[in-house]
């Protein structure tokens, strides 16, 4: 099963949100769409789901054109950011709703609901009202409702963003496990690059209505196609300096991750501030009063200290685009 998006375009008024997205998504992929807030990630999911009509373009699933099908005929499961649970129903009825709409027999509905409830560990709350359970439980119910009915593929719109950091960490692992278990395609939207890196088989970075780069998480980290992607991906943005600092053509910029440097000798930088991140310390510095760089360090430095660093590995960018 493959999903093909062909030249998807969508505007609201004269605000172009999606500007010709063409992409193929493979069977069984955990495909993450990553982008900052307001870039049109939710809009793209809504177009795929059939809630919004694209102005132009096609959605083809398994060779079948779905562009003009209403959402109820597409058999796509979706989990919304706010979970969209039906507040007038119990947990059980929420999960059973898609099966009832398919006119399934009562016993079969019960069997299936029980099976997903067990998979997600929510057997004990099936009788409760969905407004009377915790955020983490609501998220599981929403996922259970998506899983229960054997959809063609899954759309998830920032399903973890309403959870506290700890629960989110657990839920992330669980999502990955579930995706492996059902073996179906997940299209997952997030603005959290870390989440994207840990979940995705492939990431598509959405910027200005287009997929600026699509690739494996490590490729995005190692070879960001544009300066913008380089600064968006990673715990810290990639550093950039004009080429002449390391004897390259001054018309190119060299981009390097903080870990690709070594303190000691070389280019001079003034420390502006420090931050502890995990095990390491990071220095926020300025080179020649103009260029900001972030450097990892093993020791504390004071503000105003001068440090020297060498670039061990770098990529070349011309006009903001990777050139190699």
């Amino acid at each position, binding site marked *: 099963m493959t999903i093909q998006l062909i030249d998807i375009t969508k505007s609201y008024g004269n605000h172009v949100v999606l500007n010709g997205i063409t992409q193929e998504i493979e069977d069984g992929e955990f495909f993450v769409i990553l982008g900052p807030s307001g870039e049109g990630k939710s809009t793209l999911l809504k177009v795929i789901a059939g809630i919004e009509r694209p102005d132009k373009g096609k959605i083809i699933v398994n060779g079948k054109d779905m562009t003009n099908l209403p959402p109820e005929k597409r058999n796509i499961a979706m989990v919304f950011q706010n979970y969209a649970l039906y507040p*007038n129903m119990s947990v059980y009825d929420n999960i059973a709703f898609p099966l009832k709409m398919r006119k399934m027999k009562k016993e079969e509905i019960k069997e299936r609901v029980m099976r997903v409830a067990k998979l997600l560990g929510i057997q004990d709350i099936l009788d409760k009202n969905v407004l009377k359970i915790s955020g983490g439980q609501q998220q599981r119910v929403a996922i259970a409702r998506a899983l229960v009915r054997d959809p063609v593929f899954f759309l998830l719109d920032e399903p973890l963003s309403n959870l506290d950091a700890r629960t989110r960490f657990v839920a992330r692992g669980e999502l990955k496990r579930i995706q492996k278990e059902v073996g179906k395609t997940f299209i997952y939207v997030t603005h959290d690059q870390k989440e994207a890196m840990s979940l995705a088989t492939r990431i598509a970075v959405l910027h200005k209505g287009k997929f600026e780069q699509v690739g494996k998480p490590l490729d995005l980290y190692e070879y960001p196609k544009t300066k913008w992607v380089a600064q968006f991906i990673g715990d810290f943005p990639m550093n950039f300096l004009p080429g002449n600092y390391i004897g390259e053509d001054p018309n190119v910029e060299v981009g390097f991750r903080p870990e690709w440097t070594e303190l000691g000798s070389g280019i001079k930088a003034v420390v502006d501030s420090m931050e502890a991140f995990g095990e390491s310390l990071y220095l926020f510095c300025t080179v020649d009063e103009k260029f900001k760089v972030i450097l990892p360090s093993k020791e504390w430095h004071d503000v105003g200290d001068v440090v020297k660093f060498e670039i061990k590995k770098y990529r070349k960018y011309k006009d903001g685009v990777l050139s190699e």
Partner: protein
Amino acid sequence: MNTRQILIYIGVIIFSIYFLFPLYILILVAFNSPKYTIFSLYPSLLLQAPTLSNLIIGLTQYNFVEPFLRSLGTATLVGVLSIALGIPAGLGLSRLSYKIAYPITLLLLITNMMPSISIAVPIAAEFIRAHLFNTIPGLALAQTLITLPLATFILEGTFSAIPLEIEYQARLDGASVFQALWRILIPMAAPGIVAAFLISWMFSWDEFTFAVILMPITPTLPVEIYYNITRGDMLAAVAFSLIFTIPVVVITLLLQKYLRGEYLAGGIKR
């Protein structure tokens, strides 16, 4: 208890007396011997000689059952019509952009300010031709003219409080537009629907202008009470008024939780 609370309580008491006093007089006239009330120059404010004979005379001498049933039928029809038309209208408005929905809602409510008397006469003329004059459906249609904008306004507010994602979710779960409405949106909007029904019902229950012009021959209860008073039959009027008030009190008590302000805020909360 601090001074602020005491002042609030005093305010509430004055307010309640202001509204309950007429009702008290009604009960007094109904259960006191007429010589202490309508026949006395300086009527007493206390129950002097309790009696049931006023009511017995009033209710046996005249037929109140038929006007009561006519009122009941009309009010119920008005309530049903108002929500049957108000649900699609309110849902539609709630899904339009605010810039379009707001002027439409405003226009609806302005039409509502038209004096009933000035539209009742042309309606009567049309109804005579359409054989709707002096009929319950005819009167109900005319009264719905006033209640429908209110019901639409309440329901617009109710539906716009439901997140769009819930409707999308229902569609993705395999529900058609109609199933999503019936299984999800309407149950979620139930409090607003009840409020809209009640407001319409109660409006029709004591509506007078349309009733007296469009259904004068076999009148509804408020008009019947008015006829009694003009005929000089105060005791019958009082008995009827009492009967008339009971359903309102019962309904209000039963459904008061739906009549809290939040459901009536309508399209205001955005």
